[in-house]
């Protein structure tokens, strides 16, 4: 069971969180004309990385904030966590 540092609440067990997928995906702006390919990339296409992965989790049984977690998908090592509004370089 992972041990995740919520930027708002501190270290909490994985059971308090729900997973939200790739955090690097940006939703296309509203009312913008975009190609099928761009839309498919946003909705469906994911890289399924092995290694460092920036992903979303929601602290669903805690502060209910969505957070960003930088995790190694093969070792589960968590490097850093961020608030939803933090830009990750």
């Amino acid at each position: 069971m992972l041990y995740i540092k919520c930027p708002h609440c501190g270290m909490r067990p994985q059971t308090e969180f729900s997973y939200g997928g790739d955090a690097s995906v940006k939703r296309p702006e509203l009312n913008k004309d975009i190609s099928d390919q761009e839309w498919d990339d946003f909705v469906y296409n994911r890289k399924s990385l092995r290694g460092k992965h920036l992903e979303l989790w929601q602290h669903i049984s805690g502060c209910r904030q969505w957070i960003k977690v930088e995790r190694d998908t093969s070792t589960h090592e968590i490097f850093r966590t961020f608030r939803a509004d933090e830009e990750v370089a």
Partner: protein
Amino acid sequence: MSQNFRLENIGLINRDKKLSFKFNGKTYFGYEGDTLASALLANGVHLVGRSFKYHRPRGFFGAGVDEPYAIVQLYRNNETEPNIKATEQELFEGLEAKSVNCWPSVNFDIGAINNFLKIFLPAGFYYKTFMWPKSFWYRIYEPFIRKAAGLGVASIKHDKERYEHKYEYCDLLIAGSGPSGLSSAYAAAKNGAKVILAEDKPRFGGSLLTSDVNIGNQSGKDWADGIIAELKTMPNVVVKNRSQIFGYYDHNMLVMSEKVSDHLPSTKKYHPNKRLWYIRAKEVLISSGSIERPIVFGNNDTPGVMLSSAAKEYLKVYGVLVGRNPLVFTNNDSGYETAIEFKKHGVDPIVLDSRKNPKSEIIDEAKNLGINIKNSYVVVAAQGYKKVKSADIASISEDKKQLGKIENVKCDCICVSGFWTPTIHLASQSGNKTKFKEEIDAFVPGQSKQNERTLGAANGIFSLEETLKTSFAAGSELSKKITDNDNEVSVPNVVEKKSSQHDKFWCVPLPEGKNYKRFLDFQNDVSVSDVEIALREGYRSIEHVKRYTTLGMATDQGKTSNLNGLQLVSEIENKVVPAVGHTTFRPPYTPVSIGAIVGREVGNHSKPTRKSPMHTWHEKNNAVFVDAGVWLRPRYYKRGDENLFEASKREAKNVRTNVGVCDVTTLGKIDVKGPDAAEFLNRVYTNAWLKLPVGKARYGVMLREDGIVMDDGTTTRISEHHYHMTTTTAQAANVLSHLEYYLQLVWPELNVNVVSTTEQWAGAAIAGPKSRDLLKKLFPNSDVSNEGLPFMGYMEGDLFGVKARIFRISFSGELAYEVNVESDNGNFMWEKIMEIGEEFEIQPYGTEALSTLRIEMGHVAGSELDGRTIPYDNALEGLVSKKKDFIGKRSLQRAAFTADDRQRIVGVVPIDKKTSIPEGSHLVKDANAPLPNPKLGHISASCWSVEHDNPFSLAILKDGKNMIGEKLFVMSPLKNKIIPVEIVSSHYVDPKGERVRS
């Protein structure tokens, strides 16, 4: 029966407390502090079971967790539990146990015929034999194997025992209380670290309980007792015996099973049977010691053949002699320690040492005691069926290939030592990459992945002096890092005898003309020849060999067999052992009760139960409940001997003719507040929201980004910046997360807050032609006329002093209202509605009538919004704005979603107007078409239309738009039904929607 093999002046048992117990129906006596195994051995009982495959007689091989044979069925306090190791089960007064894997009895076992048929049961026999004729598998082979195999019988009764879960955090978790565990725990505790020290056995001390060493000026055991006594007084230390750490998981979380009550005749009141600890540790020290491994020889599974360390433990801890005429067969000095203990207690052992001329302090002591030692000698085969009677022994050449002349010596037990295997399971589970250590012919932990460190024998360090030195240092260093204290603890002096190098010898060759079974894995009956066959048949990877032969599988997980198996593969394949590699160690290290894993979450506690504030009223009025997610909702209210069908029909009809009331508290409710709330709703829903006035409700549909309908519901503008959103019962939690996602991550610039108010409001839907008359009497001070409160209108009202929200919305298609009051007033509201509604012939209705009403109206619900449909499919495309953008809009342009023959909701009526249509059935054009018959659609919901008094269903049908009037067939292979049907509009009642506006 008397305890003939019990010695008077040795052991840690309590001789003042004699206990009686039964094994296979016969009564025996033992002492408090015995295990079932030691008590049986004290009584001279060696035969405890039959082996898994060949049903050969089996005895005791070990004295603890590594035991592969002595698995019994335990009876305790009118309960039974399988898969109990006799070597771990502590004795209590009245204990009852039986052998497993034998029928009709352990002494006469019919399955033992397999022993003579073993030529037919080679490696992979499950895969090779019993394959034909096919029908024989189910009727003959499988039932026979089921009866023959298996390690006991699970109880089919409800388990009355209680199991608990506990969550704990600590600085250092130390697994094992041997010399390294005690030293590191002591050093860390002195630095103020929060320490948990876990020991799987009842007694602390590990190898110090049986080894002949001195620490400081005391015996090893006295030193251990002193350390434990001091640790127990320290507030920062938790010391737990009977507690097995069986799994090492991610981020330094380990799970430990504490046997709270297994050693007692019955569980004490308010105590659990077992307690499962989830421990998150900053640092983990693995001091799990090592397990002696056997040397392989002929018939090495005969009862009376056991590990030499086990023989020593039975002697020193339990005062039990495992034989009076022992033979010790060793390739290292450990066998001598056992021989010396025998000799000290008046028994003359013979030692066979595979080494030519070993020299050490221990061997000198054995020689000085006059022990008969034969160098370059091996046991070729044990003789005897249900018990060792003698051994065939022979000298062996230096290259270990040639045997000398075979001699037979009388003996009643063979104590075997093939050196020590570090217990690296926890380290390996943590992700540690293990490495092979040539000097000890075994794997030890390598590079750590998590915060763990392995100490002492588990790390391949067999010198006590070095173990103490490194363990004290590790405890100090790691605790200092956490607490910043540096209280130096001096390492005590150690007096131990030096040992000599072991012999890299593990398997005795077969003498010419003999074909003894030489077992590698005792629990699964895997012999040397089985592994040879597997390799001959082309299995190369050790993981494949394991699965094909079952080597190292089952409840002991190869604790005594793994390394010898690897040695064999490496020899045949001509590879070094590290190149063969070992199979993956997976949790649990030892079997864990399912009850302990489940904990308290059984029966009604397996999930939370949510009840509306009106639940008690429903109960009192004969409601029959149904699970709706975690909610309990009335399905119908039973009158007399009505069944579900009759009751729901009555309730639905009463809504169409008079008025009904339904508890809708379970609907999800979300408060949406803030200056940008309208803009937010406009992006979330498919329809327009910017112009909804205060005091009005609107029905809305929300999509996922892939264009699929996520949920629907009405949202009401309570005030300028305050909206009250409703969701379906099932989707309430998902919708809230969905809204939070967009507000926090996608459009953080919107000034909006959302919060669940589901539990704050109790809701009652009042529906039927007489509902307005009822409402007028409920709210005499409010204008609830068609003009005062039009369709989709909202107002606040005063319900006899209670503040209420009144929504004019309808799910049933009738003139209808929904009244919400604060939850605490829910029951008051309900009783008022029922009381005043009496004159309008009001009846409560449940979810079944609710479904009937919505189905015949063609209102979609969860069975249509099933995660596969878009707005068009549900005839909701009118609610999809062409002007504005919203979540999921771009996906609606996809070709499949705009195809001319796109699926769409329709109504379905059986031609005979009688046959009810099973939900989930398929719609086909031709009932007699060859299979697979092309599917045109499926039935999503079925009811008995109370308006038309015949069956009616909704279906999602290909090209549904152009299918009205078509005649098709409903097919349900599950119910074996073919029903001719006609496709009609999904709006089967009041297609123009006049009633809701009346």
